[in-house]
């Protein structure tokens, strides 16, 4: 058994009592063995120091991404992990990530609520002109709102008697027949340099 094996066994506590006593005796007289044990002590000290530093290294970003990944597993695991990865790349801590998530959720909820509530409660502006028709209180009357001018004139309204409208009988006169039988003017498309506009043939 070489000295390295003996040291390893000694360090692992696998030496028998006889081997242990002879090993300790040889350590006292053998400077080479002493140097090996000393180097082992240095190795352990170096490893211990480095390990303690690495043990204290902040791994909150990894933890954040893990939790995000777990939370998103039910829906889409990859999106959660990617979000966390982006956050990590951006240098966001776990607390920042959580705070920003809460903020974004509350903002989007607020925006959703605002849009829907304003849609329901949007009033008609009485001062604005609207084009449209509405039935008056009486079912026989039809109210037509005509847009007013840009000036401050109020919108002109015309109340038409509904019954009268329906009772109107159109009779076809000779003039109407002439208009119906008359051939329409031929249309010709002229490719002028200015515009493609139809021109009536004379």
């Amino acid at each position, binding site marked *: 058994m070489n000295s*390295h*094996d003996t*040291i*390893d066994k*000694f*360090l*692992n*506590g696998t*030496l028998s009592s006889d081997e*242990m006593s002879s090993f*300790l005796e040889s*350590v006292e007289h053998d400077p080479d063995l*002493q*140097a*090996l*044990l*000393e*180097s*082992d*002590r*240095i*190795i*352990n*000290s*170096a*490893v211990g*120091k*480095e*390990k303690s*530093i*690495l*043990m204290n*290294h902040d*791994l909150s*970003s*990894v*933890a954040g*991404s*893990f939790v995000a*990944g*777990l939370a998103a*597993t*039910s829906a889409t*695991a*990859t999106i959660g*992990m990617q979000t966390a*990865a982006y956050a*990590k790349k951006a240098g966001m801590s776990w607390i920042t990530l959580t705070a920003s998530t809460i903020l974004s959720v509350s903002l989007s909820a607020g925006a959703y609520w605002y849009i829907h509530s304003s849609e329901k409660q949007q009033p008609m502006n009485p001062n604005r002109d609207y084009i449209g028709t509405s039935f008056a209180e009486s079912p026989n009357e039809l109210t037509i709102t005509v847009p007013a001018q840009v000036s401050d004139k109020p919108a002109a309204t015309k109340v038409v008697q509904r019954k009268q409208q329906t009772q109107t009988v159109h009779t076809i006169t000779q003039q109407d027949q002439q208009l119906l039988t008359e051939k329409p003017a031929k249309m010709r498309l002229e490719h002028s340099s200015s515009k493609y506009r139809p021109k009536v043939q004379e």
Partner: protein
Amino acid sequence: MDEDQKPIELKPNAVSVEQPRIQHNQEAQSFAKFLSGDDNAAMYFFRAYNRKLFLYCAKLVNNIHAAEDITQEVWERIIKLRNQSQPEIANPGGFMFTIARNLCLNHIKLKKHTIPLDAISELDIPHEYQPGSTEMEELVHSSLDTLKFEDKELLVLNMYCGYRFDEIAQMMGMSPNAIWTRASRARAQLRDRVKIMIKRDNKS
């Protein structure tokens, strides 16, 4: 008295750090729960392995930021396995360290091919995060880096992650004797290098 010249403390088990006991059957069951969507099981594995995976990666790639990314990638990959039909994983620890190992190797390969020597930042210097380390201790770290990847991996799993050699053998699917031999050889190399430095130091 200088720190390096302290009398040698002859204590057995001087190497031993935390001694995790791997109970594969229980772990395999918990891991199956984790993969089937149990968040408590997931948190158990995260607490048990996250730091060890980080230590392992940090020492293998010599860059704590890359190690963080790799550790995160390991968890991402495991989470992606959730709710998928998977054969039962009998050795979850070994499974996770294998993922980490492959990612570390990929990182080292990529680094070899793409980063010129001048472009290596201070972050890549292995002893950057050890402001109070002595010359001897720095020598230990650089000596560790000169070992073969497999030998270095063994020592890292033993000295940094705190696994016993029989546990490492179980994780890697190798015989404990083979692991013991390899680890002893690697440790002997480290000792010899440090011993030479001590002799030089004493002469000067």
